[in-house]
């Protein structure tokens, strides 16, 4: 008997704008000049937010923070492809996604300062509070997407996680359910090469993370995560497919975490400065800037104005965050259940938190 090949898996890699800022116009998604400028401005705002968060941490004004430097294109390009009423399940390194969605920045600063009210997501936003346990929120996106299908809503859910998260059972089980139930969900893996000190090669022996979708019966694609157009196009295509009943997609954004894992980490203990320098040259803002310059959309003066405006915005948001009244200790108890239990009512008195 001949041995037959019964399945073949091919993984596509998508890049639209290369490191020199040159675009493949046949792949370029239809974005107006205003939209491109908006993406650029959002990246500057996210980077400014991020930079200030790092300073605030050093000054003791917020707690541990996870920097997004280097991953702005992966986050903003994908978030831009999601509609306002699509549901987003972020990890803890997703400031760019929040910024793109217009989330109140002062609330993000509150959260990182240790205040749960920062994740009291306002009406009109469909972000879930960021997941601290790695990868465990992947099945939630599947569940929400499945619920959308059951209710006949034409929407998608998206889960954001990293290469570390892809090693979790939650990642596989969440994706497997999505495949079986054709849930309209996008799995956005930012492969930033490092899970704290452990390199991508230690997360999986597979060549790509994208190929893991094949085991769940749907498409996985790797995109240049520092090319905002590739990320946007892959996400947009996945959203359209999902909304048309085509089920889930896994998108691996191949990118790099330029900063330490968090403000509590020291990456020099486990990776070389040379490696980081190579990636600094490939970071996504440089690429978008080069592309826009070629199109006549960028000047130094334009960027200076955008940066100044971003600084002003962030300053105001920090002021607002820091002027916000301290949280009420009764909140510790108040949100445990739909109603206070008899014990909790007594404990509010016992702890002196009842007003």
């Amino acid at each position: 008997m001949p041995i037959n090949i019964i399945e073949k898996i091919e993984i596509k890699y998508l890049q639209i704008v290369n490191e020199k800022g040159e675009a493949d116009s046949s792949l370029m998604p239809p974005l107006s000049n205003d939209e491109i400028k908006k993406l650029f401005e959002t990246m500057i705002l996210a980077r400014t937010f991020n930079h200030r968060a790092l300073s605030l941490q050093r000054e003791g004004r917020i707690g541990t923070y996870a920097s997004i430097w280097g991953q702005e294109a992966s986050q903003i390009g994908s978030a831009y492809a999601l509609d306002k009423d699509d549901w987003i399940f972020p990890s803890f390194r997703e400031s760019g996604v929040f910024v793109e969605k217009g989330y109140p920045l002062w609330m993000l600063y509150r959260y990182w300062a240790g205040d749960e009210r920062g994740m009291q997501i306002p009406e009109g936003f469909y972000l879930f509070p960021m997941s601290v346990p790695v990868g465990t929120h992947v099945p939630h996106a599947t569940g929400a997407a499945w619920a959308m299908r059951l209710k006949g809503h034409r929407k998608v859910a998206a889960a954001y996680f990293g290469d570390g998260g892809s090693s979790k059972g939650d990642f596989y089980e969440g994706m497997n359910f999505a495949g079986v139930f054709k849930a309209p969900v996008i799995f956005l893996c930012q492969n930033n090469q490092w899970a704290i000190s452990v390199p991508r090669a230690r997360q999986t022996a597979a060549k790509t993370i994208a190929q893991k979708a094949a085991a769940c019966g749907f498409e996985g694609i790797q995109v240049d995560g520092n090319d905002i157009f590739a990320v946007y196009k892959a996400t947009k295509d996945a959203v359209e497919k999902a909304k048309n009943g085509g089920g889930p997609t896994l998108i691996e954004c191949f990118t790099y975490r330029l900063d330490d894992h968090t403000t509590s980490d020291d990456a020099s203990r486990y990776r070389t400065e040379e490696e980081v320098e190579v990636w600094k040259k490939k970071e996504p803002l440089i690429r978008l800037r080069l592309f826009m310059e070629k199109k006549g959309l960028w000047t130094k003066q334009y960027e200076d104005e955008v940066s100044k405006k971003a600084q002003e915005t962030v300053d105001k948001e920090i002021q607002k965050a820091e002027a916000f009244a301290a949280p009420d200790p009764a909140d510790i108890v108040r949100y445990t259940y739909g109603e206070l239990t008899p014990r909790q009512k007594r404990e509010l008195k016992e702890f002196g938190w009842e007003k």
Partner: protein
Amino acid sequence: MGKINIVQAINQALAEEMERDRDVVILGEDVAKDGGVFRVTQGLLDKFGPERVIDTPLSELGIIGAAVGLAAYGIKPVAEIQFMGFIYAGLEQVFSHAARIRSRSRGRYTCPMVVRTPYGIGIKPPELHSESSEALFAQMPGIKVVVPSTPYNAKGLLKSAIRDPDTVIFLEPSRLYRSIKSDVPDGEYTIPLGKAHIHEQGKDITVVAWGTMLHRAADAAEDFDCEIIDLMTLRPYDEETIINSVKKTGRLVIVHEAPRVGGFGAEIAALVAEKAMEYLKAPILRVTAPDAVIPMARLEDHYMPSPESIKKAYRTVMEY
């Protein structure tokens, strides 16, 4: 009125709630075509279709994790975990997500779902099919833990659990599934969560038990005047009913089939020591399993608190 068993009572509760609320769905392993390994969901696939009675992949984490997302979006999932010993794969989803999403989002998102699972010893199954780790769940704020003991309360409690705004872990005593029958009214009724039931009134000993052990504790009480409290909800539990009863009887025996150390009996004993010490005429006693892993079928009868050991505890507190 008609006499039915717990399997039938739970099946009725599920069917009625699915009729009442279109958002209620059942998901789990073998729950649809097969009607569940205990046949608890039998017939529901035919009645409500495959979009609402859903056979899932064999994936406890996936079942509970997806249910968190379903619930947050507005579906009311009733997830079945085939045996309590298999729920551990989904614990992080229960503890780190279902239990906390209301608090983490300061009320914006909630997780109203039910996780049903058979618990306890007494049906001589393979390993890890007999767990009784209710105390593990009862320690975790943000979830509720319910253990029915009769067809009547199984139905009324499950209906309340499905309507509850928070995650409810619903532990079904597998030993009792078909071994007891009781009258269940035809009409609509619910039993509130968080309230205990005085199963038998008495004057001399307050006995607190739940699930399978409720019946064992009651049977052993023949020669004693026991007030037997069926706790029914372990989180949040009815402290008042226990304290009032102990104030009357002056004696407390707690019976559970989990090991003693860190078992839920410890919480009840501590409560009574704090709130009703001066009423006690005898030490508080706990009758429990030994501090050991649950054995397989050949030894399970030795593991479970015996009628003799329960009677001995009753005698001890009376003679103290």
